[in-house]
């Protein structure tokens, strides 16, 4: 693909890019080569063709392939190979004419409409609306009825007819560019419209144009050959008339279908392959360069890693009312041909009616863990090992029907983005009623009535009217209440809420938290995924801190805030705006969570930890520190928990 001369990289980089293109898309490279060969052979047809297009060999009529006639002969003993080669000249020149018209009309029209907008854009849109409703074949037939066998005119008409389609694509590519920041900048810097177009707009439309041209060229080949087949085109040997000849002699020599069909199909197929490859290459460049190299990576949690096993985080109350018991849960995602562990041997309990928080930065595995409890890890992830017991039932490895009865039945899910988690095509009421009837034997009318009651329970005004509204008519807060109504439709024992307030306004956040607290007071246990300590403190008694796929600390929320026993917790607390001290700059945690494939074997936080020592390079287990006073259950994954316990968050030590 071409780049403007003003592009920063030179010819060498361009060459390398081309080589990369060939390597990554061998099929497209084959297609380009094949097309070039066909075109070259067609151009050289007068030299290459062993016979003339109309040379007759009556004795050898309808012969199969022989040494004299490599592809056999047709009626009157005319050589098929020669007719294909010479006929290609007619077909391909017709296609070339229409492609030239297509580009010469479509590109300028599209650029003008996209860049200048206004009335020209309007005219283009209206033209497109009309043209798209007219079957191209019909227009060509009208043209050919008026000017019999004038194929050049027909192909020009075809190019004209299709050009609004190209113009539309070019228009939107131009508009994307026009609205891009750097073009705005160039405009305010006083560059002329023409210079902006050449430097910034034209490079943006080359890719889409190549895609459109290859699509149109294949359509043009199909139409030209169709005209030939129908006898409406040039009255000479062309690829299309060869199929017509085969058609007329189907009973006599079906072989005739093969060479003509092969040449048309392979040619169009090659154009299609090139178009697809150009589109992919373009999409890849738009989204940031070449695809990642495929490196097989396989990291599995190794149970025999030679450390003391983690101590499971136990529930706050006594052991008898444990609702959810997660043990050594390991979740992996597919990654570049291998699999990568994102949640690594997590063990914890949740008691009935308890509210437990799950905190950590993005990319620590919170959501993977939360979804795994329902058996619904997204994006191809799976539970590699471990156990999830809900009451007396094991969920890991349970069959789909069992899992379905738990989902929405004994546990409810509240998602992060309330609006996009409702189906836009159904009314609120029918979506709630659907959950109700999935988990009960209520009649349609009863399910609807119950749905309305549920909408009232989540404090939505006028539930009976609102039930008939569609999701797009709701605010985010209302949508989240609908989401909660769906989640509690079957009176679940556990609610799992994945950052339920992140997408909402602050005032609405408080209302949703009130609602969740109310539901918890009614006896539902809650697992709240969040990164907001304010939200956490509002709702939860206890929290689990996750870092890089592991639990690193677990304790009562008050204890975590007042005396973190893991430097990550300390840093998270310090970096939280809702707990920040007035007048001091808000500390941040230096660095980012490393991607799962790069997690170290030792303490995973060591690289970002201000307190890290050499001993942190060995794996650390989750343990109950000795200094813990009896009665306060807490665990930490740090070899130096003493340095934080009781000392409070060391704001000054967290690098800003």
């Amino acid at each position: 693909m071409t780049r403007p001369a003003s592009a920063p990289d030179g010819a060498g980089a361009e060459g390398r890019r081309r080589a990369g293109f060939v390597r990554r898309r061998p099929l497209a490279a084959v297609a380009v080569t094949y097309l070039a060969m066909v075109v070259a052979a067609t151009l050289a047809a007068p030299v290459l063709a062993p016979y003339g297009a109309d040379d007759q060999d009556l004795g050898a009529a309808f012969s199969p392939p022989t040494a004299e006639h490599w592809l056999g002969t047709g009626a009157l003993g005319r050589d098929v190979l020669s007719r294909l080669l010479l006929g290609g000249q007619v077909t391909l020149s017709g296609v070339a004419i229409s492609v030239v018209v297509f580009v010469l009309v479509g590109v300028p029209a599209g650029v003008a409409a996209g860049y200048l907008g206004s009335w020209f854009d309007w005219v283009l849109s209206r033209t497109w609306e009309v043209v798209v409703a007219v079957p191209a074949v019909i227009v060509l037939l009208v043209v050919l009825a008026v000017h019999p066998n004038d194929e050049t005119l027909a192909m020009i008409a075809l190019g004209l007819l299709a050009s609004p389609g190209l113009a539309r694509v070019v228009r939107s590519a131009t508009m994307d560019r026009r609205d891009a920041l750097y073009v705005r900048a160039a405009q305010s810097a006083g560059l002329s419209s023409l210079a902006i177009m050449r430097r910034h707009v034209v490079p943006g439309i080359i890719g889409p144009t190549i895609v459109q041209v290859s699509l149109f060229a294949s359509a043009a080949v199909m139409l030209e050959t169709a005209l030939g087949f129908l006898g409406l085109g040039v009255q000479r040997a062309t690829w299309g008339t060869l199929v017509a000849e085969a058609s007329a002699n189907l009973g006599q020599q079906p072989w005739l279908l093969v060479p003509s069909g092969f040449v048309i199909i392979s040619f169009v197929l090659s154009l299609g392959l090139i178009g697809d490859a150009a589109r992919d290459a373009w999409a890849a460049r738009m989204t940031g360069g070449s695809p990642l190299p495929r490196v097989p990576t396989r990291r599995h949690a190794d149970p025999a890693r030679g450390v003391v096993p983690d101590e499971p985080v136990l529930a706050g109350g006594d052991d008898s009312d444990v609702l959810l018991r997660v043990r050594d849960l390991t979740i992996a995602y597919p990654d570049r041909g291998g699999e990568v562990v994102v949640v690594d041997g997590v063990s914890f309990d949740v008691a009935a009616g308890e509210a437990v928080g799950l905190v950590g930065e993005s990319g620590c595995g919170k959501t993977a863990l939360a979804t795994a409890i329902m058996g619904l890890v997204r994006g191809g992830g799976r539970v590699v090992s471990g156990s999830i017991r809900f009451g007396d039932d094991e969920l890991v490895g349970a069959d789909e029907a069992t899992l379905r009865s738990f989902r929405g039945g004994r546990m409810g899910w509240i998602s992060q983005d309330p609006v996009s988690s409702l189906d836009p095509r159904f009314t609120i009421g029918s979506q709630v009623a659907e959950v109700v009837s999935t988990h009960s034997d209520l009649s349609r009318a009863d399910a609807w009535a119950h749905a309305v009651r549920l909408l009232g329970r989540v404090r939505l005004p006028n539930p009976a009217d609102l039930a008939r509204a569609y999701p797009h008519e709701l605010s985010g807060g209302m949508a989240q209440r609908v989401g909660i109504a769906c989640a509690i439709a079957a009176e679940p024992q556990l609610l799992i809420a994945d950052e339920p307030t992140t997408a909402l306004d602050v005032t609405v956040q408080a209302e949703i938290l009130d609602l969740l607290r109310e539901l918890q007071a009614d006896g539902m246990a809650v697992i709240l995924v969040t990164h907001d300590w304010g939200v956490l403190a509002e709702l939860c008694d206890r929290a689990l801190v996750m870092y890089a796929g592991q639990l690193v600390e677990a304790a009562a929320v008050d204890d975590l805030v007042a005396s973190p026993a893991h430097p990550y917790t300390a840093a998270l607390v310090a970096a939280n705006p809702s707990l920040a001290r007035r007048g001091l700059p808000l500390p941040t945690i230096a660095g980012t969570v490393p991607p799962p494939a790069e997690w170290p074997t030792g303490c995973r936080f060591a690289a970002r930890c201000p307190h890290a020592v050499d001993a942190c390079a060995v794996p650390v287990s989750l343990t109950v520190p000795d200094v813990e006073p009896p009665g306060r259950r807490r665990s930490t994954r740090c070899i130096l928990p003493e340095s934080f316990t009781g000392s409070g968050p060391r704001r000054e030590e967290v690098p800003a």
Partner: protein
Amino acid sequence: MTVEIAAPPVESETSAPAATTREGRGPLLSFLLLAAGRAVLCVLLVSLLTFVLASLVPGDSARSILGVNATPEQYAALRRELGLDQPLAQQYWDWLTGALHGDWGTSTVSGGSVGAELLVRGRVSLVLVVFAIVVAGVLGVGLGVVSAVRQGRLGRFVDVVSLIGAAVPSYWLGLVLAAVFAVYLRLLPATGYTPFGESPVEWFTGMILPGVTLGLTTMPLLAKQTRDSVSDELQKDYVHVLRARGLGERSVLLRHVLRNAASPILTVVGLMVVGLLSGTVLAETVFVLPGLGSWVVTATLAHDLPVVQAVAVCFTLGVVLVNLAIDAAYLALNPRARR
């Protein structure tokens, strides 16, 4: 499909929501009127275009009917009879009002009424298109949905089929099918048409090869679009949430995903119908069916302009009507667009 759950007093999802009734149906009606207006305009434009093109022909219909040996008097008389001595605008107006009353002129080749034959042949083409839509719809949507759900190898299979399918000319495929099923296996008739009234069985067997040919050549487009939009939908939040509420996979797929994926699929169905109408030209020629497509080809070869004009307008009308129906279906499916 699973049973629709809705408020008992409301019969179905597709009935307008309460808010629309409150606000009146103004926007909906104006949208449909606008679409209908566009459709009429489109048909008029095409008819005008064909008319003007036809008037540019050196030597008019009178000349082609009479041949070169007619006397100037005969020629002038026929010109007057055909209205060719009138100004172009008058001629167009006469043709248009005639067409609206079912009088599409006279074939310059057969001398018969174009309107009468249009009805007979239109029926054949309509049946062919319906056959093809059924074949393409069942195969395309089926293959698309299954490959979206299964991904992997079947997804690649759909890719390959759609790529190759787009490269195979319908007339060539028709010839191959005819060679295999009619000439070689002798299972089906190769060519010809039996009216339904004469023998329903032969009518049906005669339509199989043309219908399958036309359906197969348009199917890949539909399969690919179906797969793409269904897999897009499957990635969305609401699908995950529906599953998290314990809904069965069948209900998620058939009730929710397919309905949401329908809009882009409908757009492709519109394009597909344009392709099908064009395709009748080739399929009817290959299988020698007396429909509009084969008629317009012979008329083009014979320079029979009234016929070409009539068929061009008919096909445009067909496309425009299908697009109107798709607009209406889009509205019915999309509550947001109904406002």
